[in-house]
């Protein structure tokens, strides 16, 4: 891959260090601009009217009083947006359906959840916009609603879409329901498998919907010009995807919309979709002024995608010696008001870390009157893992085997089968288990009311399209641009890989994120894909610029380009026969660029494949207060195969962050609805995410089993770490109390009820 460079044999100068990130100073001084930090002269403020009802037909909307309020420049309803054809586009698992998407952005026939956007107002001040919202009159016909996934599947449940016939069922049902689809993966012979088992456990579990919980509410600023050209500043995980969705929903040509990547205050998957952008653009188009929108925290909880809650039954059979022989999982995930829960992921990931010859997973995608679900860190996988990893723990106890050793015995490696078809392509899972077995605290004895639990998790990790461009400044410094939004420090990782490939100091590389008009397509920053796929584009661009630099040097020396090598940041003669030439730095070559041909630039693009999945194995120690049911995390150790840690501190940070989100998911987070289907805890006070005083230091172990398909061995890190924590904690609670909790969150009232139950 590295052509004509003297290769540094796995000893890196830049890769593997943890320098300060290029966007660091702006972020610690408050200078960095996030989605809500942009302003333009003449800017209007927009507010959104939201449904107070969980399920209602919209009979009419009267905006006349709002329009008459002084200071109001425009009122928007779905009538201002083109209708979309009903069609699932793209992969079945995450198919985009613009008919659904436009209705989620602004309701048409029905309000399908409390908080569903009904109309929007743009006014000269935020206060006037808020006043105008209250003047919009909506005639609702309130309908019965349904929230819970099991209830929504009931034949008598209120139906959200009168024409929804479940897909994936033969013969197709005759009655509409809330079940969007059924899917199934199957390998081997389940009956024979279970017949051969010495121990079988079958159990049902429930998880609650949880929000990604990013601290920054959705925000954007749009400026639509009289020439049909629009600029949009948006905090998202993928400005190219924002451009595509927004243009489609507005009926605009993609080329007429430029999206600038604002810094983003957290996403975790929840900002790979659009909510406010189409509204801001439409209002800007209607008013001829720039329009700014910032969602309130309450609206973020009521109207943006959490991940699904799920209801599942898991059955696993094992032999006395610990060999897993059969597994069956049925997973029902609630998608919110429109189809698209991550149920396929849940079904594919559930048993993926284990070699099991007979496996079946069945999934149901179910709609109900709550906000449409969106991706959340390894979407779907944490949900099914809760059930699977809990059952494995019960089986380990039944056969008297250490739960880590049970996993190790059945651990997949390269060549092992997957439940969804192809073989596994990479090692790495067993190494994460071993890291914990070797951990000095793993066998440390615990005290009263304390218990230790383990769990593992799997996530695919992504590849896909990325572009990187490089140019050499006149002083020899390097400018590197990609189109990958920087959520967690990727500018630094890209610069490290570039510095390593070029053989120059990290400090000489300027790493930036370019807007949609300035660089080729980049897929979202999500799916743990950026360090891998955009990294590949960066390395390829570096290799191309090295070819150029060699060529320029050869011209400067007037020799054949074959006589020039690139080593440690310098062009050097390949050997004495080429001539006695001093090595040329980037600075020296850049100084002569005009006479050697002009600016030194290049670009590289990939549609990357060859990525390796993520495996994480974790153990945690808890103490349960028998009087309150409160669970305290005493210790949490998470091992993850990262392939190669380009920036070790950022890899650790990803593991810390995912684990703590998992702790919140396990112990506290849920949506509490009242009898009218309205959300009671739409704020950070009562939607309680972990705070600093809840937690000990989380210990992250970076296991490195390099991915041979990437020049630096990279494997995606961001997501796999959120998959195990819920089960690890449930298993720890069981060891501490003797009680098995099967419903999330395992909040104090639930734990107390379990302890007190006979």
């Amino acid at each position: 891959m590295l052509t004509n460079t003297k290769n540094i044999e796995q000893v890196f100068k830049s890769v593997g260090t943890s320098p300060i990130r290029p966007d660091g100073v702006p972020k610690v001084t408050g200078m960095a601009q996030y989605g809500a930090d942009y302003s333009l002269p003449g800017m209007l403020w927009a507010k959104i009217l939201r449904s107070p009802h969980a399920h209602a037909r919209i009979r009419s909307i009267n905006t006349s009083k709002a329009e008459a309020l002084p200071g109001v420049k425009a009122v928007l309803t779905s009538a201002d947006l083109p209708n979309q054809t009903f069609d699932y586009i793209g992969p079945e698992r995450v198919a985009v359906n613009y008919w659904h998407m436009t209705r989620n952005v602004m309701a048409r026939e029905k309000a399908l959840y409390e908080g569903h956007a009904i109309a929007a107002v743009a006014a000269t001040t935020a206060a006037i916009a808020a006043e105008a919202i209250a003047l919009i009159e909506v005639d609702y016909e309130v309908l019965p609603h349904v929230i819970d996934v099991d209830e929504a599947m009931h034949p008598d449940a209120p139906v959200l879409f009168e024409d929804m016939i479940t897909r994936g069922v033969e013969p197709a049902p005759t009655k509409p329901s809330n079940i969007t689809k059924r899917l199934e993966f199957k390998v081997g012979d389940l009956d024979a498998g279970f017949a051969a088992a010495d121990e079988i456990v079958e159990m049902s579990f429930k998880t609650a919907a949880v929000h990604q919980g990013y601290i920054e509410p959705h925000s954007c600023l749009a400026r639509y010009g009289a020439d049909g050209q629009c600029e949009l500043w948006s905090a998202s995980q993928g400005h190219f995807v924002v451009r595509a969705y927004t243009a489609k929903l507005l009926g605009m040509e993609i080329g007429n919309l430029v999206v600038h990547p604002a810094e983003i205050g957290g996403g975790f998957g929840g900002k790979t979709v659009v909510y406010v952008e189409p509204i801001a653009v439409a209002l800007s188009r209607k008013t001829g002024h720039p329009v700014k929108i910032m969602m309130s925290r309450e609206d973020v909880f009521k109207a943006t995608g959490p991940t699904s809650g799920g209801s599942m039954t898991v059955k696993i059979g094992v032999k006395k010696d610990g060999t897993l022989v059969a597994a069956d999982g049925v997973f029902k995930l609630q998608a919110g008001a429109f189809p698209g829960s991550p149920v396929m992921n849940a079904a594919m990931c559930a048993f993926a870390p284990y070699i099991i010859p007979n496996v079946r997973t069945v999934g149901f995608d179910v709609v109900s009157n709550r906000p449409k679900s969106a991706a959340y860190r390894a979407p779907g996988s944490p949900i099914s893992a809760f059930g699977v990893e809990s059952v494995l723990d019960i089986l380990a106890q039944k056969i008297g085997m250490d739960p880590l050793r049970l996993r190790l015995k059945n651990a997949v490696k390269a060549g092992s089968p997957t439940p969804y078809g192809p073989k596994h392509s990479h090692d790495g899972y067993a190494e994460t288990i071993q890291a914990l077995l070797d951990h000095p605290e793993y066998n440390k004895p615990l005290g009263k009311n304390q218990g230790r639990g383990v769990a593992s998790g799997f996530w695919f990790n992504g590849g896909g399209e990325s572009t990187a461009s490089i140019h050499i400044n006149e002083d020899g410094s390097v400018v590197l641009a990609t189109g990958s939004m920087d959520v967690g420090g990727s500018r630094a990782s890209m610069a490290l890989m570039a510095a390593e490939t070029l053989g120059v100091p990290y400090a000489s590389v300027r790493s930036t994120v370019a807007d949609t008009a300035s660089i080729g397509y980049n897929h979202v920053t999500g799916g743990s894909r950026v360090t891998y796929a955009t990294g590949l584009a960066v390395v390829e661009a570096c290799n191309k610029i090295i070819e150029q630099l060699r060529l320029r040097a050869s011209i400067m020396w007037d020799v054949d380009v074959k006589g020039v090598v690139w080593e440690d940041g310098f062009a050097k003669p390949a050997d004495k026969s080429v001539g006695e030439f001093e090595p040329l730095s980037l600075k020296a070559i850049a100084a002569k660029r005009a006479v050697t041909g002009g600016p030194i630039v290049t670009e590289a693009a990939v549609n990357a494949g060859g990525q390796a999945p993520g495996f994480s194995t974790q153990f945690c120690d808890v103490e349960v207060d028998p009087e309150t049911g409160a669970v305290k995390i005493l210790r949490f150790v998470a091992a993850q195969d990262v392939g190669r840690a380009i920036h070790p501190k950022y890899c650790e940070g990803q593991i810390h962050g995912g684990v703590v989100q998992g702790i919140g998911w396990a112990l506290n987070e849920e949506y509490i609805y009242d009898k009218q289907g309205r959300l009671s805890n739409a704020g950070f006070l009562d939607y309680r995410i972990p705070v600093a005083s809840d937690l000990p230091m989380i210990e992250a172990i970076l296991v490195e089993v390099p991915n041979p398909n990437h020049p630096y061995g990279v494997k995606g890190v961001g997501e796999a770490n959120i998959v195990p924590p819920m089960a690890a904690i449930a298993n720890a609670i069981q060891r501490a109390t003797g009680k098995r909790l099967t419903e999330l969150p395992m909040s104090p009232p639930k734990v107390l009820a379990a302890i007190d139950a006979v």
Partner: protein
Amino acid sequence: MLTGGFSRRYTDGVREFEIAARTVRGVISAMDRLYPGLGEHLEEETSLAVNGVIHEVVYTQIIPADAEVFFIPRIEGG
């Protein structure tokens, strides 16, 4: 090879095929000849696992001899 769900939707449940092709384009064309229209679905909806290693669908990718080629649902994350 195809997953069960995909095959149920597009190939009457047939999941395994023997194809002679040297590139991904060759595989897709061959599948499209067997089931007209299938090619577009494969392009739009799947990722490709060649001997287990996952790739996006790219026409020019070489398929080694005797490789197992599995079309799986395309991967997205969060």
